[in-house]
């Protein structure tokens, strides 16, 4: 057990913080520690968690992607239009279309990065502008409300009536999220390709000398994120029951912050699915708790931002490092 904690410090700390916050909130509010609220939290977080595990794969491979959230918006539009064209479709065709469209957009990033040696932040900032600009241009900023019925109908997978008469429900996005999380975990920890992604992110030159296909790594990582972004886009449309072209604009940075809070490293080679999920949950729980405590919603973001800032500061700081005149051992090598 101690070994487990030592090997997953970030996750352990995050978990402890979440437990601590939860305990406080359980005493401070009546509603926090209820099944209904727990399920709500999952329902709200599902889309971000799907984004997060996708982004995690790119971060592990040493890249970064700014474009995935607007790519998801593009996917929403493409999927809605295609579904209309094929006469409605269903969950299977919807997921297939969204997933493939997402993969396509992700592969564009990988192609630019690989073929022209553009570093990922430059390439994806460019595609961010291209995707978003073209989306707003062609849609003229108009939202789609007449989505197929199957897409806008809430799918409740599990429900239970609570003592106070309210219903605790788990909806479809949560199940999809769970599948995405499980598959991503399986992929990056239990397949050789997943381990190669870690190795590539950790030491690209070392990986190259082992004959690992660098191109394949980029395409797989960005393709994976594209797929997750596509699925998340569809889930968000389902949840919101509409497609608004700029609904996900700006989401990329929130997700990035949560993933890195979960221990992933910009630069590659590090990060776990568990940490990533905990990172998103910490942010959601904080917002949820503040909400229940009756704090003004305008203050949420401020407090969340402060928490992330403090968390990043503390997790990067070693105490001796904060003292100006001391240098870390091995620092001078």
């Amino acid at each position, binding site marked *: 057990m101690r*070994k487990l904690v030592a*090997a997953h410090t970030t996750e352990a700390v995050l978990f402890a913080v979440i437990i601590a916050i939860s305990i406080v909130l359980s005493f401070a509010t009546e509603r926090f520690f209820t099944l209904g609220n727990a399920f709500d939290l999952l329902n709200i977080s599902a889309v971000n968690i799907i984004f997060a595990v996708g982004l995690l794969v790119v971060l592990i491979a040493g890249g970064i992607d700014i474009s995935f959230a607007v790519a998801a918006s593009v996917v929403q539009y493409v999927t809605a239009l295609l579904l209309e064209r094929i006469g409605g479709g269903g969950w299977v065709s919807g997921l297939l279309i969204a997933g493939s469209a997402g993969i396509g957009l992700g592969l564009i990033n990988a192609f630019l990065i690989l073929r022209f040696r553009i570093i990922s932040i430059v390439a994806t900032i460019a595609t961010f502008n291209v995707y978003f600009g073209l989306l707003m241009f062609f849609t003229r900023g108009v939202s789609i409300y007449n989505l197929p019925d199957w897409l806008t109908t809430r799918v409740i997978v599990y429900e239970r009536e609570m003592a106070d008469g309210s219903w605790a429900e788990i909806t479809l996005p949560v199940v999809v999220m769970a599948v995405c999380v499980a598959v991503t975990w399986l992929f990056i*920890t*239990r*397949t*050789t*390709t*997943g*381990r*190669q992604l*870690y*190795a590539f992110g*950790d*030491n690209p*030159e*070392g*990986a*190259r*000398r*082992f*004959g*690992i*296909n660098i191109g*394949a790594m980029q395409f797989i990582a960005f393709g994976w994120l594209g797929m997750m972004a596509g699925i998340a886009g569809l889930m968000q449309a389902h949840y919101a029951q509409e497609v608004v072209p700029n609904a996900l604009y700006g989401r990329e940075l929130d997700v990035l912050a949560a993933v890195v809070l979960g221990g992933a490293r910009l630069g590659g*080679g*590090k990060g776990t699915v568990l940490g990533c999920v905990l990172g998103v949950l910490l942010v959601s729980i904080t917002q949820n708790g503040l909400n229940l405590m009756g704090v003004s919603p305008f203050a949420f973001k401020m407090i969340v931002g402060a928490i992330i800032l403090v968390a990043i500061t503390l997790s990067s700081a070693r105490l001796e490092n904060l003292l100006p*005149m*001391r*240098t870390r051992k091995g620092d*001078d*090598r």
Partner: protein
Amino acid sequence: MDMTTAPGEDARPILSLRNINMTFGGVRALKNVSFEVMPGEVHCLAGENGSGKSTLIKVITGVYRPAAGAEIVFDGAAVSSMTPGIAQSLGIQVIWQDLALFPEMTVAENIAFQTLSGARPRFVRYPAIRKIAEDALARLGVTLDVDRPLKDFAIAQRQIVAIARALVGEARIVFMDEPTASLTQSETDHLLAIVHTLSASGVAVVFVSHRLAEVLEISSRLTVLRDGALVGVYPVEGMTQSRITELMTGRTFDQSVRAHDISRNPVVLSVQGLSRPGEFRDISFELRRGETLGITGLLGSGRTELALTLFGMRQPAAGTITLEGKAVRFASNRQAIAAGVAYLSEDRLALGLNQPQSIADNLVMASLNRILSGRLISPTKKRALVSRWIADLGVKIGQQEDAISTLSGGNQQRVAIAKWLATDPKVLILDSPTVGVDVGARAGIFEIVARLAEAGLAIILISDEVPEVYFNADRVLHMEKGRMAGWHDPRATTLKDIEAAVYA
């Protein structure tokens, strides 16, 4: 070219290369090189930096593809196009100089990485990986916690992991690229024992090392490269250190002891009882004007840590530093520089110079205050300062604005020295100034050192190559495990005696 007979003349080479040519951006890195390794032999591949050793290894392992016409024959079968995958399946393994390990992954995954590579996705079987790793470590007689990430381990242990990785999967021939560069003597001895074991079990080992003493001790044959071309293949028996240096550089050197009596010069720097827990203890010495004080000792002797403390980058826990009669306590290296202490880092690539930046910017980096006019940097003063030092130290450059990384190791080191001389120091600490400098260019560096001492500068010369301090210092301090182990006077002792004391 003189070819000699390999041990077991009728044996077939395990690996044979012919007509290897390799060009990078117009520069021919390998010119018509041939290379042969016999089964089970310990072969040494020697050459200066940039002579093509590493390139050759990368061709053999398929990282680089040689120009058309190349022939690679492994165990009697021609290999038409080598890839890292094919090299591994043939049993060609490399322990790279930079180890090429994955710090965030576990020891087990690092050692059994071969089972993780390959294009087809498969599921990872962790118990099998752990077993492979433990077996490989057992072969080396080492136990490590294979489930911990590699980054938890020190460099020597990482080296062992790299060796263990090379032993996985039926190695037939193992290349070791400068394997001892970061090891202490006892660790090196352990490594050499492993090499013997490997060789006895029929695995050929190709040793690439810059420590020539080891070359003589361990190999049976020696292949020398110079400027990307083959100089020759020689039996090690009867080979001397100076002969190998000659072969590598194509020049002859004769060295004499430079030490002279400086005991009447005034003291510049005095250190009393300096200590830092875990690094060094109770260091006391005096450094005089015009003196070159040599400090030698193995890795872990605390010499670099001592230098960094004198340079103000670390603070002593106990003891005093007196500079020109005044007790000093540096809170940072900025104060040390201002007081007249300069430190040339042993790690020129990462710390000593700012590789991507220009020659001029590197040279003025530590003495910006000297090129100000008003509050702004004066381009005229900057150019003048740079030109003066470039001329003074005989640095061969194209344009002042060229990146410093375009210069050779020797010229880079001259710029690094010039950077510190421009600060007008009283004490100059040179930490391993010949690391990454070609054998042929080292003499030039030491000529500069001698000239500076002549002009009155007090110099501390740190090196783990005993001959360097023996020939170039006035006195030699031997450090061991953070303590002062002894003083040597080059005029009164022989090189052998000091080496015996240091490597004991």
